[in-house]
């Protein structure tokens, strides 16, 4: 299977939240049966954040202008990084890369340790206290395996979301950025080609990364260091064992003799003992 990716083009997104609900529909994610809280922003974002039962939301940001506003939308969900901090952090191997690049949590293996939650530079995985499991977008791996698009993508009408061969998505994104720049969106740029070894969610941010809330040059914080620490630790322990083994070998058969002390005379006597 070739590497595939989702392409999100913010300039085509109408923020209808179709993808948001399609995700819930396909992945059978419940929503509360009552809701009387102020759980949205004045810019129409609701819910406010990802959750164990919410794997995708559209983020809304607005910037005031003389006439109207700049309304900048962003698809907030897993980026399916090639260098996936969550996967590195997972102590039980529950998070894995699929051949197409999707990063998937195997719920049968997840132990709810939340290491991935702490490690993700995009703050994507969410821990469900009741189930003691962590959840996130899995790029509808069941659908893509069957040759379908992820639910969010097939639900998108303006082709703000596309899915396909990663190289092709990158090519489309590159061309789109050029188009947007020509149309006056000077800050238009793409995201995901190189970041974290290459993301499997490519973004065209027509008003620039910052306007859409994207992290420029994201880093894996410490989790990669830990990756390096593991083998080092293994080596350290192995070296210790080897060293001690050598010591044991060298000291075999050594008898140090029988010590005795006469406190009255303050005399120390060492009596050789036979081997």
């Amino acid at each position, binding site marked *: 299977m070739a590497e595939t990716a989702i392409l999100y083009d913010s300039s085509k997104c109408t923020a209808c939240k179709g993808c948001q609900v399609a995700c819930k529909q396909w992945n059978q994610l419940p929503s509360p049966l009552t809701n009387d809280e102020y759980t949205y922003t004045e810019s129409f974002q609701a819910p406010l954040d990802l959750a164990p039962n919410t794997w995708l939301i559209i983020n809304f940001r607005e910037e005031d202008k003389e006439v109207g506003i700049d309304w900048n939308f962003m698809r907030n969900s897993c980026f399916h990084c090639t260098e996936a901090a969550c996967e590195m952090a997972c102590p039980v191997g529950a998070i894995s890369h699929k051949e197409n690049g999707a990063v998937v949590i195997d719920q049968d293996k997840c*132990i709810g340790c939340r290491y991935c939650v*702490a490690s993700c530079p995009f703050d994507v995985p969410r821990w469900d206290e009741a189930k003691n499991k962590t959840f996130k977008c899995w790029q509808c791996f069941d659908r893509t395996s069957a040759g379908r698009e992820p639910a969010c993508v097939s639900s998108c009408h303006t082709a703000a979301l596309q899915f396909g061969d990663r190289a092709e998505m990158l090519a489309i994104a590159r061309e789109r950025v050029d188009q947007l720049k020509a149309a006056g969106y000077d800050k238009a740029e793409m995201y995901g080609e190189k970041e974290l070894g290459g993301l499997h969610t490519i973004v065209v941010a027509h008003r620039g990364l910052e306007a859409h809330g994207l992290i420029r040059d994201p880093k894996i914080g410490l989790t990669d260091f830990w990756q390096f620490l593991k083998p080092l630790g293994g080596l350290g322990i192995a070296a210790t064992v080897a060293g001690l083994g050598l010591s044991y070998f060298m000291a075999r058969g050594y008898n140090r003799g029988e010590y005795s002390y006469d406190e009255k005379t303050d005399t120390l006597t060492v009596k050789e003992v036979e081997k």
Partner: protein
Amino acid sequence: MRYIQRHSAFARGLHWIHTIACLSLFATGLILFIPSVAAAVGVATVQGARMVHRVMAVIFIVAPIASIIISPKGFVHFWKSLFFKWDADDKEFMAKFFPYLFFGAKQHMPPQRINKSGQGVADGALVFLSVFIAITGVIIWFPELFSTGVVRWSLMLHSGLMILIGVFMLAHIYLGAGIFQPYRGSGRLMFGDGRVSESDALYHWGTWAKEELRKGDNVITE
């Protein structure tokens, strides 16, 4: 035969408890540390291991704190005897430690006070690392109470500390349990009746042994 009562029953009990806690923490932690092990044993076992890890973590943290409360004098003794002096003998001991480890028959050590400087270093490191691993452990146990950055550091440190503790632990066991030929019989000190024979005491802690034998308070003759 003469023996010196080196460790009280209380100290030995505490050591027993901490040994068990520590080893089980290490074992259960290792399951989480090596994903393939976790994958192989299955989620139920992993979850069991996490539960054991947490129970043991509580013991690991509570036992020493409790001992301080129950026996403050013992703690002061432990603390003073391990860390408080550093004389020429100690320096010499440290300088000769590695040659001694590999050429124990030829390398002779200067007489030591109640604790060797090597012990001071190793045990001190263990105490220090244990405190640290406990703190980081609590953080990753309740990540929602801390910032992502703190949790990330804790995750990393917890693992790193485990490795360091592992290294010191191996050495500690190697020596303390008397696997190292010259240390034969040391296991009795913490895992047995807490007594050290006159000969062993004089070999390991010459200065201290002479003092004890002179004082006679802790000397048992059988």
